[in-house]
């Protein structure tokens, strides 16, 4: 049943399902998938009953009968009354089952277990700021629009917003939760399968709501640890041919909004770019990550994401080449 539903849906879509609740890859999305299965069974059965009754009623109209209207009771009334009671009982039983399943699963979604990985996600119009928290400040990682998770360990995600309401949703891992200014929400995800997934903002948040995605990679613990160690490193001093790019970055408008650890760039209005070249995509999933696309994005951000807060910075062709070469080196 479960696998069947997935296969049917994926066949219909002809795709891999890396942004789909039908392809659960964590405890939480798996539990929710069980609710879905229960719903399909109970609701499917009820729908079938209604259609059968309706078909029978339509079929029965073929019987010979008079045309005089019946304003009062008919002979079938007692039978119909008994059936009505039976039907109501069936509806109540079905709903009770579903309410119970739903309640039990809901209780499980909030349990993080011991030693979760603490991540703070802050939504902005239209990108995600991500911070891996640690009691030791030197172990804190800042990144953007990309989440790496170790398989088998619960991730406890704390949700903030800097501007309007957004919604954090990685369907393969867990249900969505809103990020609301003035409030802090949480969501727990315990991945059980490695893979690459995609999340997307699910609450209408303005002009670029459509382009506010999040790349998610679930790795075995040792690979996650390697990634974490790499992210902890500040950006290296650039080699001579990249130094011009870094100089331009630190003297043009870029430095007003972005941070690169290991340099004097430390602004937080835009995504942290310390390891920007290690990410799969740029501009919150709007473009695949490549030096060419970085150039396209910097040349005219509003052509890619109309309404974005990233300004158009005047650069000569050489300057652009130098900056994108430098950024592309920030692995």
């Amino acid at each position: 049943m479960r696998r069947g539903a997935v296969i049917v849906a994926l066949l219909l879509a002809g795709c891999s399902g890396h942004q789909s609740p039908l392809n659960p890859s964590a405890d939480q999305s798996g539990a929710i998938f069980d609710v879905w299965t229960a719903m399909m069974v109970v609701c499917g059965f009820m729908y079938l009953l209604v259609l059968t009754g309706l078909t029978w009623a339509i079929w029965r109209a073929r019987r010979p009968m008079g045309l005089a209207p019946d304003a009062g009771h008919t002979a079938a009334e007692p039978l119909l009354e008994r059936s009505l009671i039976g039907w109501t009982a069936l509806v109540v039983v079905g709903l009770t089952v579903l309410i119970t399943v739903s309640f039990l699963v809901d209780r499980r979604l909030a349990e993080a277990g011991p030693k979760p990985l603490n991540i703070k996600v802050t939504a902005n119009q239209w990108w995600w700021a991500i911070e891996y928290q640690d009691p030791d400040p030197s172990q804190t990682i800042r990144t953007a629009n990309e989440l790496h998770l170790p398989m088998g360990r619960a991730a406890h995600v704390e949700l903030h917003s800097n501007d309007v309401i957004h919604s954090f949703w990685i369907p393969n891992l867990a249900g969505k939760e809103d990020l609301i200014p003035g409030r802090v929400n949480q969501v727990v995800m315990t991945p059980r399968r490695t893979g690459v997934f995609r999340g997307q903002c699910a609450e209408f948040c303005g002009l670029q709501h459509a382009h506010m995605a999040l790349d998610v990679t679930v790795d075995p613990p040792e690979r996650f640890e390697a990634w974490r160690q790499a992210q902890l490193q500040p950006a290296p001093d650039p080699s001579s041919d990249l130094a011009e790019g870094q100089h331009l970055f630190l003297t043009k408008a870029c430095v007003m909004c972005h941070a690169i650890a290991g340099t004097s760039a430390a602004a937080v209005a835009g995504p942290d770019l310390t390891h920007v070249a290690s990410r799969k995509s740029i501009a919150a999933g709007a473009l695949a990550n490549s030096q060419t696309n970085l150039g396209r994005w910097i040349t005219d951000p509003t052509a890619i994401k109309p309404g974005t807060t990233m300004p158009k910075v005047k650069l000569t062709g050489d300057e652009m080449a130098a900056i994108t070469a430098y950024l592309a080196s920030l692995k």
Partner: protein
Amino acid sequence: MSDEFLPVVAEGELHQRLSRTWATPRGLWGVLTTVDPKIIGRRYVITALVFFVLGGILAGLMRLQLARPESGLIGPDRYNQIFSMHGTTMMFLFGVPVMEAMGVYLVPLMIGARSMAFPRLNAFSYWMYLAGAVMIFVAFILNIGPEAGWFAYTPLSGPVYSAGKRTDVWAQMVTFTEVAGLAVAVNIVATFFKLRAPGMTLARVPLFVWSELVTAFMIIFAMPSVMLATGFLMSDRLVGTHFFNASEGGDNLLYQHLFWFFGHPEVYIIFLPALGMVSQIVATFCRRTVFGYPVMVLALVATGFLSFGLWVHHMFATGLPRMGASFYTAASMTIAVPSGLQIFCWIATMWDGKPRFATPLLYVIGFIVTFVLGGLTGVMVASVPLDLQVHDTYFVVAHFHYVLIGGAVFPLLGAIYYWFPKAMGRMPNERAGQIGFWLVFVGFQITFFPMHILGLLGMPRRVYTYPAHLGWDGLNLLSSLGAVMLVAGMATYFLNLLISARKGPLAGANPWDAGTLEWATTSPPPVYNFAYPPVVEGREPLWEAGDQGLAVMEGMKADTREVLLTSAAEAKPDIREGSAKPSVWPLLTALTTTGMFIATIFNEWGLVWGSIPVTLALVGWFWPRPDHSEIAKVVA
């Protein structure tokens, strides 16, 4: 049959005197001053249908944009305005008004009354509705249409993130339609309780009239909440209050609570009258009074009550306490019980009756097939865990189009077809009606069923475009193609009515051989509805009276406007009361109120100075006129 209850002697003269008394003046003056619920009701329905078509065109534009991934046809700013206008139009300018308008036209006729309790209030309601609707469409064309969705969540709709006047126009449009909605709602409540024909006890009221009563009460309790929400929002935007400003101690969830405390009953406000329409159609076309009348009435009332306990299921993802959220899961699922009861009763009526599969009954069958599926996906989204996955995805878009189009628009199309001969005096073309039905039904399924799967494949709502690699392309294209078929069906349906209104064969008083009172009078009904108040002795008066014709009550004046008031529960004749004549004051009051509302969009002092002309207009409206207040005890 219908004409037989008129005593033959006086018929001609009585008709003339009553016609003179209840006439609407000719020409433009009559258009502006009429208080006849039939004229206002028809005008209201047609206006709402015009907005239905406009909302449909907006939907078509969205399907055009979404037919291909990364489509550049419509930019994000225009797209956001289009989907905001589509939702706003369908909910505020079509859904609620059309259902109330059907009540304005039909309730007096179905309860055997000459008019409604407050005829001028109907006129005021219509002008307010028209002004608000025209205002927002003009604003939309001038590129100041709403941009934050039909729900306008703060802070996206607040002063910082929605600068300019777009959201203010939207919020004020809500005020217009709520004033209009409340005016009709109180009118329907008073008409229901005081103007029913003698003998029409509560146990004999047609189910459509019951559904309009429950709807009216829901409007009265739900609409103040949204007026509070949009009022606070406007005040945040205009005078810098901080109701929804989190950094100054305001709360964005407060807006959501206020909005959905209205917003959820709102969908039932649209849906309940449709259930009443289904009951009338089922009874007439199955030639059998609806099985389980008390159950049906109680189910309507229960749905009305329960609908106020569900609003939080729109907010499951906002991080509310889990135990509290679970309560709303249970409450939301409970509403499946009254809905299930009604579905059973209609199918049982069809099973036990003698169904004739004419167009209205086809729409009812289409309604059952579609609405039950939408109801079941409603049970799914009521579950907190499952909702966390499908909330704000295309699954929900599919769900509510199944319940709102399948659950409300299908019955409405059936109902308009069913009562068309009564209102226009001519029969629609049955063949065209059936072709239209099949195009609408199949087109609807092709358009909206794929959206369930799209949602389960992770496609969020309200995106102006989507990338190609996520597997959403094919289903979106299919959905857009289905929309073409749906549009063809709607066009067939409306063309049929437009042509039949002029060229259809004459209908006669009771072409469907129905059992309720509106079919006792001529088609279209005379200005005074009934020459004598009919006396009701059962639920299907015309079927029970048979060939003898309806019993009637005499003693009403023919030379002044008079309605018969009866007791609230038993409908015993009580007093005769004067009824308002055509008046220009409702129009003047609506115009001055419109001036005040529009001025308030731009300056808070508009409320202060604008209230002066409104007050003057109201003084004119309520200036004592002796001929209205004449009350006479009925001498039995």
